[in-house]
């Protein structure tokens, strides 16, 4: 699947195998969160696992799908809203967080979930992340970190390692990669979980906690692009590198979380959580009170 080729038939009618998938999903009882449109991702793509874990988390939390708004940018990950049952907003590239904040601020009763790729969120959209985080609007942002631009067929992304050969860097990527976990912590996200597409159970747990967190929860998830990355985030490479957050890590310790992030990239679990940080909604209540009291 790629921007150049994903096209006419919005869901592939020719593809008999895919129909089978639908039946499996139906059997799993997760259909409340899966629309009739089937994911158009490549076979073996890590995004399936993430989707599954997410559907499970939503089921567990019993979020009503008419109160759910899934907002995305553009990218393979960005097509999420089409595969979900619920209100969706497939926006423009890199700006999902801004739309999502607007939705939530306009109607705080809605559950707002943002999904998007690493290019979408850290490249073109990288200017919005620190501000969404510091505003601490109560929503969850899942970043699908596959270290590549999938939809446009394999160019370097902001998390592509230095030296990797890609469509735009045939002689090797000259730029140091960004680390979404380090970024999230230095912006002081009030919740930071780190997930891995190959561990759906663990992932589901992180999602449940993120969705339950009051405030902005940021969850980068490492995942392979099986079609355009055969050297870095492959299933083989990731499987070995995975390690859960050490049991003695205190998720309220920002410094400790930073240590973990610096030390080794592949810790999975909840690295940081600050449940009492006032959300934007809390601040807004204060503002309204002050305004009505006329203290200015």
């Amino acid at each position, binding site marked *: 699947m790629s921007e150049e080729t994903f*096209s*006419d038939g*919005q*869901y592939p009618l020719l593809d008999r195998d895919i129909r089978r998938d639908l039946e499996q999903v139906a059997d799993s009882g997760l259909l409340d969160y899966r629309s009739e*449109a089937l994911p158009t991702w490549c076979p073996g793509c890590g995004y399936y696992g993430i989707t599954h874990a997410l559907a499970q988390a939503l089921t567990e939390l019993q979020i*009503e*799908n*008419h*109160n759910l*708004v899934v*907002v995305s940018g*553009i990218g393979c990950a960005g097509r999420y*809203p*089409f595969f979900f*049952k*619920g*209100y*969706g*907003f*497939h*926006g*423009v590239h890199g*700006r999902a*967080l*801004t*739309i*999502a*904040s*607007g*939705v*939530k*601020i*306009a*109607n705080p*009763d*809605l559950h707002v979930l943002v999904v998007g790729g690493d290019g979408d969120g850290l490249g073109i959209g990288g*200017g*919005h992340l*620190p*501000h969404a985080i510091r*505003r601490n609007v109560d929503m969850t942002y899942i970043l699908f970190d596959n270290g590549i631009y999938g939809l446009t067929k394999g160019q370097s992304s902001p998390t592509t390692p230095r030296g990797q050969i890609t469509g735009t860097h045939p002689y090797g990527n000259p730029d140091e990669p960004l680390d979404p976990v380090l970024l999230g912590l230095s912006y002081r996200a009030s919740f930071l979980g780190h997930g891995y597409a190959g561990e759906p159970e663990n992932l589901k747990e992180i999602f449940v906690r993120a969705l339950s967190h009051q405030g902005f929860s940021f969850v980068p998830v490492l995942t392979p692009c099986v079609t355009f990355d055969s050297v870095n985030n492959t299933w083989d490479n990731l499987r070995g590198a995975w390690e859960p957050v050490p049991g003695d890590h205190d998720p309220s310790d920002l410094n400790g979380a930073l240590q973990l992030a610096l030390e080794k990239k592949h810790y999975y679990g909840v690295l940081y959580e600050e449940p009492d940080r006032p959300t934007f909604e809390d601040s*807004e209540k204060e*503002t*309204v009170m*002050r*305004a*009505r009291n006329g203290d*200015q």
Partner: protein
Amino acid sequence: MTELNGIDVTFRICGAAGDGSLAAGSFLNRAAARMGYHIMNIDLYPAEIRGFGKSVAHTRISDRPVQTPGSLADCLVSLNDLHAITELDTLAEGAVILYDSKPPNYVEEDEAIAGFIEPGMIGYGIPLGELSSIATKSARSRNIVALGALSGIFHLPSEYLRDAIRERFTRKSEEIAESNIRAFDLGLEYANTRLVKADAIDFEERVPGARDDVVIVSGNEAVARACLDAGVRLYAGYPITPATKIMEILAKELPKQGGVVVQTEDEISAIGHIIGGGFAGKRSITATSGPGLSLMSEFLNLAVMAEVPVVVVNGQRGGPSTGLPTKTEQSDLNIAVFGGSGDSPRPVLAPADVTECHKLTVKAFEVAEAFQTPVILLTDLFLANRVEDITWPEGDLAIWGRYENRIADPVAAEDFKRFVITPDGVSPRSIPGTPGLHYPATGLEHDERGMPEYSPENHLRMTEKRYLKFNTLRDAWPAPVPEGADGELDVGIISWGSTIGSAREALEHLHTTDMNAGGLFPRLIWPLHEDALKEFSSRSRNLIVAEGNYSGQFANMVEAVVCREVIRITEIPAGPIPSERIIEVAGGLNR
């Protein structure tokens, strides 16, 4: 009712920052408006650098509605001669100059305005500083002394001025108020007793029709108030001249009625936020200027494609690029109308004056909702900052059409088609949170359900739908009604936005000649009422399009409709186009 007494006087009160010229202007405005005069005021502060900046309150007072601030002043009040000297070329013939006859500091000879008063001008020297010291023990009330003098010289009813002064200063303290009233009275007395009236300006101590419901507001204030009146739930914005004020007012006022103001990290985020708000079913708005509107281009297109109602106010300033951030211009019309990639229709509205800043903002929300579209409201720096005496528009504003906000019926939830093709292009919308009516909004071309669909047939159908809505709006919005003479016209004047005031003033003047002149002033700038334009053009021997930009942006659009070369008045004077310019062009035409 207003009784005309032929008053039409333009004041310029000039000082350095801190001299209180702007405050004096505002007292003068307020008082005159309460008396029943009409006013237009614009504050100018060209170079307030390191406290040495010049500030000018430019106020026109007339017993008839004021269309423009006027180009030449009838009276210059100098609170700082060095600055005021640079204002001499803004004066009408026979103008009055009021100055401090004993300025607080020593002034070089060639720096005292008294030395510049030429034959034909009328100078009144008043010891402003001295009288101020007597009244308030400081030179800070020189502006108030000057106001008193103005009252005395021109027979401006003094009670109204005293009230305006008292209102403002009692907020500080009763004592300050009283000492300032003393300053005023000293000025008044000095004028009455020590000056010999040599000019012809005479308010005759008359009050044409005192009004209580009048308010003095700027275009920006009118837009902000309209947001409050329209029940805005979300304002998201990023500071930029001249739009910042709207955000600052709303930041104070909106929370009182439960609305939210978000200061975003940039304009892209601002419009993203309001698209989210509009999608969520709440009235949402942002305000910006050219550079910000440029950044919103991609998101505006998303709102077109996903059919999301939002309002974007664009206060135009000199361009291109950062341009002239403190000067007015009407040069963002092209980007407003044509700035979207693809076939991207969006309505553009432009108010003519401060009252319309309010009305059209309210209307912009109605249009945005009814037609599920972004709406751009084009004001400009002149309109945003100038103040007028207005009364708040009340009731519905159906003069500019009445529109239905079509919300989907939850009963019909089976197989909901958010973008269903309808005869007028408008599909019933659902609001997130409504059971059964969920759908994906997207910037991709999509089918009636919102799912991506790129077949040529679907693309054509959906493009047609988006343009059909546009035509539905045009039909629902009353065509612009020609103003001035009927029948065959010697000259027809088309204009838009804040230049309409100058065009109207020019028409008024032309009607005093033997010229048959009419005007056509669309407020719905896009889509254009083509028939009305053609009809007007067919009646006009000469057709003028007057606007505040260099390249004739509206003239280009009009020419494409009327299939005729128009006479272009395209000026970029960094201020409003003087009506004299239009009169000059029209007067020189063959009939």
